[in-house]
Structure formats: C-alpha cells, structure tokens
C-alpha cells in the first residue's frame, strides 16, 4: 500500500512537469500547424542556461526562471520569421518544409551543444535539492513538488491569459480557423510569432526545473521530444486543455509500469499506448483534436 | 428520364452552424442542373457531401440507384461522379497531360491507354496545345478548364462543376458555356454551382436555390427568376431592375 501510494505520487509529480512542455507545444501546433521537433532541445538549452548562469553568477537557479523565460521568449520571437519563411506559400509543400526545418533546427541545436559542451554530465543544485516532505506514508521530494506546482501554476496562468487577454482571444481564434481569423483582422503573423515565442519561453523554463531534477547533458532532449509527442496525441493535436490529463496519464503510466512491471518496459508501454491512441482515437482521448 | 442523383434529408453542421439543413432534391439524367444561392448558403458543402469529402450528419445520397453516402471520394469518383474545385487545385508540378492522366487511371491501368484517354479529353476541352506545360504555369481560365478536363477523364456519368465560370472574362465565359453544352451532348449529366446568372439562366434546364442550407425553391430558370422567395433571398435588386 505504501509503495502504491508512493508510485501514485511519483507518477503525478512526473506528469506535472510534462504539462508545461505539452501546453506550449500543443498550442504551437494548434496555431501554426507545425510540429516542433526541437521541443526537447529547448528543454536542454534551458537547463544549460541555468547551469551557466549559476556557474558564473551564483545563487539559486530558481531566481533565473523569469530571466530564462524572457530570454527564450526573445529567441523564439527571433526564430519565428525563419519558420514562417519555411512554411510560406512560395514552397510546393509548405507543411512538409516546416517539419523538415524544425527537424534541422533540432539537429543544429543538439550538435552545437555537443560540440560546445561535450558529453559531460552537469548538474545544478537548488535550495530545495535533496529536501523532501512527508505526505502520509509517501515521501514527496520537495524539488519535484516545486516542479509540479510550477507546472500546474504556469499552465493555469497560461490558460487564463488565453481566456482573458486580447491577444489570447486572437490566438484562440487562430487555433480555430486561421483563414477566418485573418479575415476578422487578426495579424496572424504576429500572433504566430508570439505563440512560438511563448512556447519556447515556457519550454526553456521547464528545462531549468528538469535540469535541476535530473542531470544536464546535450542528449537529454530526445526523451522530452517523445513525451511532448505522446502528450499532444493523447490530448488531441492542438487541443490545449487535453494536455493536462494526458500528461498525468503519461506520468502514472511511467511510474506504475516501472514499479509493477519493470523499468525496461516503461518506454515500450508509452509507445504502445501512443499507437493504440492513434489507432482507436486519433483525435485524442477526449476526441477534441484537430 | 431517370433520376441520376437523389439527395434525401441531407444534414451537415460545423460547430453550431447548420451548413446544410434537411436538403432533398434530384438531378435528372442528361440534364444541366444549376445549384445557386447567396454566399455561405451551403452550395460547396453540398458538393463536398456528394463527392464524399465530407460525411453527412444525417440523410442519404443515391447515385444511379446506389447508396453512396459516406463512401470514400475515390470510390465515388470511380462510380461515375467527377468534380471540379471552385479554387482550381491542379497538381502543380505535373504537366497538363499528366494531371489528366491521373484521372484516367480510374478507367485503365495502362500508361499508354491513360495517355490516349487523357489526350482525347484534352482535345475536347481545348487544352491539347498546352499538354506539356506545367500546370503551375497556366492562366486562370486554363486552370478552370484543366479542372473540368481532369474531372472528365475519370469517365463520369455526372459532373459536379463548382463555379467554373466565375472569374472569367466575357469571351472565356462564352467558351466555357460552349464546353458545358458539349459535355452534356456527350451524354454526361452536369450539376453546377454558379454565381454568374448570365451563364446559369441560358445554360440550365432546372435550377435549385439554397439559402442558409435549405432549399427555398426549384424550378426552370425562367420561372425561378420570377419566384418571389428567390428574388427576396438572392437575386435582389439587380434582376428586378432588369426585367
């Protein structure tokens, strides 16, 4: 029973972290119809940025969360025109080119990180590292809880922003129908740029937490790309609220398979569920996808 | 004359909008039938439902006595319904001939035979001279012709034409009307959505009028233009002033 509760808690905590990546990624897809293969690489870059900032500026990596958010917001905003160019109508198959472009971007970022920083494993320590809370019989690592809380809060804040702000309304309009939004006077190019920027900002920020929880190395992105894909398919591609249950499902799937079956089959179980979803409910578990 | 296409109680909604609402009509074999209505009245949706690109929420479509509701578009095409698109959708990096050959593969598996069939269609539609041009390089009028040619190449009994005349200059309009008549002369039934009344009225033998997804009238063209409901909904001031 104790192990069961601990497994449940572990799973939910993993899920909480994945939400942040999933929300940005899903929205990015909903608005721009582009899958960003570099999603894991933004996580990796965020983690490295935190590492270097702590190395040269000292203090706790959590302090740099806002800085990193705005840094990657800016980077995303500057990269967007390139993506726009890749998918603009002058090409024969814009959607294909967009995919290939982000694929190349991922290779570029990963290769750059490997070349610049090598295969060393780095880690950062926060004031919460190694601390834990007791929740009944289960132990809740404080850092994980912080990650979870951050994930949930960031997602809620983001949803509120989408719901209430003027630009949020434009974003939702675009996610529904791009052409219609354009006709209604939404500057789709600007909105897309903002969405991409927010997505890179959020993902970079998630990278800080992931880096603090695990270790930081250039190859860490691959796993989060897989998770992001899993989450959006389960949520229904482009359906942002679906990300929350999907991420928790992924977390629970991981922890329960590891504990009660074997850690070797964890990723296989994830892939199996992904395939089953595509087969049976391609529009997501809630059937609300694109 | 037989009924080639029978549509019964067809319904389709997008989100909260009822695009096609309880629509029933028939198209007689060998006729040229027009489908008209104001913008957003559900004409193209209706075409998409017939050609299988959309699945209806309710209702049935029968073609030559056979139920075709919810069949895949390629099956419907092979059964004998060709269609053109309002916004021409040529295979841009293929030549005019190759474009039409793709449709001809519905009738044959041989390259040579497909090429023969395609050339014949091109000759008929007046595109033979341009057979080796890339589709991307065609003028708007030629693209519309190519749409028709590709639809014809599948060997249809019923041809759905979605605004093949709109956007053409007066000479081209005459050419297109001539082509449509020639198509019917070959025994192919034509069912067309069109905005340009100057073309619809002389061409069609029967006209169906939609508004907000519902059929508000159907009749011969000369009677349609005098139908108050139609005038009210659609034709408006322009035609009243002329008549």
């Amino acid at each position, binding site marked *: 029973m104790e192990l069961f509760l601990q497994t449940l808690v572990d799973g939910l905590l993993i899920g909480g972290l994945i939400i942040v990546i999933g929300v940005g990624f899903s929205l990015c897809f909903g608005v721009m119809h582009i899958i960003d293969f570099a999603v894991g690489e933004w996580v990796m870059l965020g983690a490295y940025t935190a590492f270097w900032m702590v190395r040269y500026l000292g203090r706790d990596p959590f302090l740099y969360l806002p800085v990193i958010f705005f840094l990657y917001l800016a980077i995303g905003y500057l990269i967007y025109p390139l993506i726009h160019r890749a998918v603009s109508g002058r090409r024969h198959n814009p959607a294909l080119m967009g995919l290939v472009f982000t694929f190349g971007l991922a290779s570029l970022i990963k290769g750059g990180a490997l*070349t610049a920083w090598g295969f060393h494993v780095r880690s950062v320590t926060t004031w919460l590292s190694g601390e834990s809370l007791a929740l009944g019989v289960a132990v809740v690592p404080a850092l994980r809880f912080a990650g979870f809380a951050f994930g949930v809060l960031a997602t809620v804040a983001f949803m509120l922003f989408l719901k209430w702000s003027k630009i949020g309304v434009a974003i939702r309009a675009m996610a529904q129908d791009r052409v219609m939004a354009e006709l209604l006077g939404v500057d789709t190019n600007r909105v897309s740029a903002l969405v991409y920027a927010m997505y890179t900002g959020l993902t970079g920020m998630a990278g800080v937490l992931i880096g603090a929880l695990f270790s930081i190395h250039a190859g860490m992105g691959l796993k989060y790309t897989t998770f992001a894909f899993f989450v*959006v398919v389960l949520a229904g591609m482009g359906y942002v609220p679906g990300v929350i249950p999907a991420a928790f499902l992924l977390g629970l799937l991981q922890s329960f398979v590891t504990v009660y079956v074997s850690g070797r089959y964890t990723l296989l179980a994830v892939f199996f569920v992904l395939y089953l979803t595509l087969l049976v409910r391609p529009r997501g578990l809630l059937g609300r996808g694109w | 004359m037989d009924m080639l296409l029978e549509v019964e109680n067809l319904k389709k909604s997008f989100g909260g909008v009822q695009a096609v609402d309880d629509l029933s009509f028939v198209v007689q074999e060998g006729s040229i039938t027009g489908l008209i209505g104001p913008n957003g009245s559900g004409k193209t949706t209706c075409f998409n439902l017939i050609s299988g690109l959309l699945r209806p929420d309710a209702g049935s479509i029968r073609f030559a006595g056979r139920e075709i509701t919810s069949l*895949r578009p390629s099956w419907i095409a092979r059964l004998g319904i060709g269609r053109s698109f309002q916004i021409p959708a040529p295979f841009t990096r293929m030549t005019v001939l190759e474009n039409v050959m793709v449709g001809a593969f519905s009738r044959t598996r041989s390259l040579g035979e497909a090429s023969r069939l395609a050339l014949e269609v091109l000759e008929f539609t007046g595109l033979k001279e341009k057979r080796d041009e890339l589709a991307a390089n065609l003028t708007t009028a030629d693209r519309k012709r190519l749409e028709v040619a590709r639809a014809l190449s599948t060997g249809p009994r019923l041809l759905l034409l979605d605004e093949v005349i709109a956007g053409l200059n007066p000479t081209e309009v005459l050419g297109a009307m001539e082509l449509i008549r020639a198509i019917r002369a070959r025994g192919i039934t034509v069912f067309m959505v069109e905005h340009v009344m100057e073309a619809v009225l002389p061409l069609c033998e029967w006209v169906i009028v939609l508004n907000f997804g519902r059929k508000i009238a159907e009749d011969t063209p000369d009677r349609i233009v005098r139908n108050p409901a139609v005038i009210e909904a659609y034709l408006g001031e322009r035609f009243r002033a002329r008549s």
Partner: protein
Amino acid sequence: MAVPLFVSSFWLRIATEVLMWAGLAQSWNIIGGYTGYLSFGHGAFFGIGAYTTAILMVHAGWPFWPTLPVGAVLSVLCAATIGIPTLRLRGAYFAIATWAFGEAVRQVATVLEITGGAFGMQLPPFLNLPFFYEAILIATILTYLLAYLLLERSMFGYKLRAIRENEIAAETAGVDTVVTKIEAFALSAIPAAIFGGLYAYLITYIHPDSVLGPAITDLMVVMVLFGGVGTLWGPLVGATAIQLVNRLLWFLRGESTLYLVYAGVAICLVVLFMPDGLMGLVERRRVLFRPRENLKALLRQFKL
C-alpha cells in the same frame, strides 16, 4: 574493361558506404519525396533488416542471402502496421507516429533476449569487402531501377505525385489515396531493410544504437533534402556529397558532433533558400537563391 579506380580496400569501403547511403536515401525518398509524407523513423526498417539477418544467421544458422527477403517482408509488415492507422490522418500524425515507431523498435531491440539486448549481436565474420561492394552496388542499382520504373514510369508514380501535389484533388480524381500511401510506405521499407541486412553482415557487430539510432534517419533526410526531394537522382547526388564530406571531415578534423551542426545548418538553409536541393540548382527550375531578396523578405517579417 576493368577500371582500377580504387587502389586500396579503404577507398573501396568508402565507396561501399556511399553506395549504401545512396540506396537508403532513395528508400526514404519514395515516401518522403515522391509521396510527401515524412517518415522520421525510417532507420527502424534498416535496423529491422539488420537484426533479422543477424538473428537468422546466429540463432537459426541460416546462410546469408535468404535472410534478406525475410527482413524485407518483416519491414513491409511493420510499415503496414504503422501506415494503416496513421496514413488516414494528416501528415503531422504520420511524422509523429513514425518517429515514435523508430524509438519503439530501438527499445524492443534493447529489451529482447533474442536480439542480445544492449549487448548487441555478433555475426559470423565474412570479411570479403569486394563481395559487399558488389552486393551493395547491385542493391543500390536495383533500388534506383525500382524507383525509376515504379515512380517515374508507371501509374503508381503518377498517383504518388498527385497525392503529394494535392491529396484532396487526387482523391476526387479517383485515386484511392490511403491505399496508395500505404503501398508507397511499405515499398519504401524494402530497400532500407535490405541495406540493413547487408550492413549487419559487413560490420559483423550490431547494436541497438548503431543500427537503430536516430542518426540513420537523420542522414537519410539530410541526403534527400540536400540532393533534391522527390527526384530520381537527388538522393544519389545528396548521399554522395554528404557521405564524402562526412568522411573528409572525419579524415581531416575527426569531430563527429560538429557534423550534426553542419547537417542541421544544411537542412535549414536548404529549406529556406533552396527547397529543390542540388538537383533544383542543376535543373535551374526554381533557383530561390537570391540573397538580397531573401534577406529583404526576412527583414520584412521582423517588422511585426
């Protein structure tokens, strides 16, 4: 008749590699280039071929040649399994599903007993390099011949290109797009599996990371893109250029991670400025490489 082009077995090995990549790139081109559906897990078929050959030779004692068709058939079955649910959906789903498939096959190979798990597998050594050179040469020629006959000279090729250009229009023109796409995907898996089997026997040691790693798919995509998507000779040109540059860099600088950067930059630049690849430049069909205009267009987009 014999032309002594290669003086040492080192260069013969390089030539063998170039030919293999040319064939692999073409296999990706069938689905990614001609059909316009991006398979980001194509390396999985290479790995399935490699493991099939290894398992049949090591555990079942088969001779080499009959293992190749078995690997090809298995790959076709896998392609159909992945293709049937996802090729009904939009291209983005297919990209994700194939990517996940690639990762899943790697996981399976790592977990199973019969594949040797993370220990990899060793095949009986057969170190006759000219044999492999000629076998791979023939496989590559057959791949190109297949591509030429099926994609450039038959009904199937027309249908694929129609799907790439406009899927809805193709469907209404009577092309059963789902079946055609699944056929194309299954077809594209065959050469990949054959090369996998040849590779396994050539290197004699295979491991989940070496035959199922993401790098294999990456390279196929880069090579096709660089050479020219959806053209017959593009993959050959791209593979030759990229693999030679790869080996040259290795020879001169020996920095393999920098190579990832070059590949990434190459992909991005090709997408942005040269979407038809080298073949596009050669054929002067659409030279988008006009630096000044491109720069201006880019700057315009910054004024948001």
